[in-house]
């Protein structure tokens, strides 16, 4: 009889403390995120209290409360401007957080971030072509966003073609292809700006490159929520494959996960998410890099905890960065990418120093 059969008895160690031990943390994070979103909607050059915010939302969604109990301007500001803006920030922030986690696992590099696959450069090139030369104007009112989306997909196709040219996709090949495509497309965008000879157009492209939630409106929100929502659900579906990929290709293979195929699936999902995010809000840096790092410190490296935590932190970071963007220099508005960069860089440096310390 083998040892495996001989010891078929109940384990003496309790299994408590494995499952669900991060649940209180995740619930707390979710609550903080929801409260933040409600508070953030009320903040801006014209402040509205959270209870009024909730009443206005309930009035529009469920027909509750009388519209006379708050000012008309408040209603317009909350429902037409801030709510779509904060909701866009929430979905883009969580998508960037989830995408960052995913990429860090599949390329096994803690410096991976959503834009490492050249997707944002592609989106920027598409948007610049639309803004400066009116390319794709036949696509209708959302031509800039659509061109950005197509640019993102084009960049992804290029990266995958380069990364796959010699067989299966490996992390290093993907990183190099992503960096190369990024540089190439950034150069194309610069050329477009140079040739356009339009100061106003150049400023519009610049604002777009730095990212902004100012273009949020009810017409584009649903597609963003569906696109990024589906992407995030798929990533969570494959959460254990991410755990295994992060441990190395051989370990993944030995545990029944084909790393090449899984990486390809995830990269496509990730690029779609980033494509939606960039086309709706421009290139917002740092969230996708910092949210996963902070999340990992709070809930650990297991992706069933890490994915929701990173989503919540991405939302928190972006929603509050947007509050800062619209309040810091009012009535002028800062590009949100500037805020995330200025606040995020010191945070990341502090994180890295702490990491070095603990190592």
């Amino acid at each position: 009889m083998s040892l495996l059969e001989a010891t078929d008895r109940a384990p003496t160690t309790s299994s408590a403390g494995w499952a669900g031990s991060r649940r209180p943390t995740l619930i707390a994070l979710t609550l903080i995120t929801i409260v933040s979103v409600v508070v953030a909607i009320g903040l801006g050059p014209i402040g509205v209290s959270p209870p009024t915010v909730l009443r206005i939302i309930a009035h529009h969604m469920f027909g509750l409360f009388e519209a006379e109990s708050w000012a008309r301007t408040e209603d317009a500001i909350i429902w037409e401007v801030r709510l779509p803006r904060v909701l866009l920030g929430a979905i883009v922030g969580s998508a960037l957080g989830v995408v960052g986690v995913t990429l860090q696992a599949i390329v096994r590099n803690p410096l991976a971030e959503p834009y490492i696959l050249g997707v944002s450069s592609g989106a920027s090139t598409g948007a610049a072509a639309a803004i400066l030369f009116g390319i794709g104007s036949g696509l209708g009112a959302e031509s800039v966003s659509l061109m950005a989306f197509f640019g993102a997909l084009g960049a992804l196709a290029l990266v995958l073609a380069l990364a796959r040219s010699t067989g299966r996709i490996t992390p290093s090949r993907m990183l190099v292809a992503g960096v190369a495509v990024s540089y190439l497309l950034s150069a194309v965008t610069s050329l477009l700006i140079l040739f356009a000879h339009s100061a106003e157009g150049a400023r519009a492209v610049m604002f777009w490159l730095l990212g902004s939630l100012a273009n949020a409106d009810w017409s584009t929100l649903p597609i963003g929520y569906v696109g990024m929502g589906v992407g995030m659900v798929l990533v969570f579906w494959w959460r254990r494959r991410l755990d295994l990929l992060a441990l190395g290709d051989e370990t993944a293979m030995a545990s029944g996960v084909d790393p090449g195929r899984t990486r390809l699936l995830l990269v496509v999902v990730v690029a779609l998410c980033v494509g939606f995010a960039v086309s709706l809000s421009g290139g917002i840096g740092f969230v996708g890099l910092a949210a996963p790092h902070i999340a990992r410190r709070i809930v650990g490296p297991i992706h069933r905890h890490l994915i929701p935590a990173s989503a919540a932190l991405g939302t928190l970071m972006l929603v509050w960065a947007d509050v800062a963007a619209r309040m810091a220099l009012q009535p002028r508005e800062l590009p949100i990418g500037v805020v995330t960069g200025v606040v995020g860089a010191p945070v990341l440096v502090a994180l890295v120093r702490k990491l070095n310390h603990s190592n």
Partner: protein
Amino acid sequence: MIAATGIDLRLGAADVLSGAQLCTRSGQVVGLIGPNGSGKSSLLRCLYGMLRPNRGVVLIDDEAIGSMSQRSIARSVSVVTQDASADGIDISVGEFVLLGRHVHRGDHQGFTDDDRKAALKGLELVDMSGFVERSLNHLSGGERQRVMIARCIAQQSPVILLDEPTNHLDVRYQHEVLTLVRRLKIDTIVVLHDLNLASRYCDHLVLLDDGKVVHQGRPDDVLRSDVLEPVYGIEVRLLADGQHSHLAFGPLAP
């Protein structure tokens, strides 16, 4: 059981394996030995689909590995790989072993209490049940290898492959890990560098040289100076201390 026959493998311009064959033996530990670059690890990697041979077949319970999903391969074969370093990933021992249960659960399913029990049982068998909450990165080399084996046990596959499990271990842990492998009494193939360890812990040895199996049989039949000297290019002498025999190595006389 796994059986590989006529395996040719080319990596880049190099012929790594040519016509290699290997199979598990019921309840026994098969040792795969040979000089650096002889193709030991590559042959092992062909057995679980990590490398696809250019020619030849790998059969798992008479089914060709090429027609199996990676998940069904992993249900039959678990592997102690060389890359499971968890560098920079602060994963706990319990969670790591639990991931061995992935093959038994769909992507959407969470792990059940049965999975946690299987993981704990694996850790108990390697005498590591007190380490569930510990970080994998904070273990000694020997403890880490035992955790790797616990993960294979949790995977509950009928075959275990080990790729140089004694690398970087001091002598005590080398013996501890291989003693553990023997105690499992399931079909095992282990790549080993150390011929004395191979002699002591394997039931059957397969000697590779330059991508070919040049000799195989019981350790006594393989670990002979007339077999090893042409392969390793070094003088081999057999020393016996009554209980065990040991191999001593020295440069070939000019």
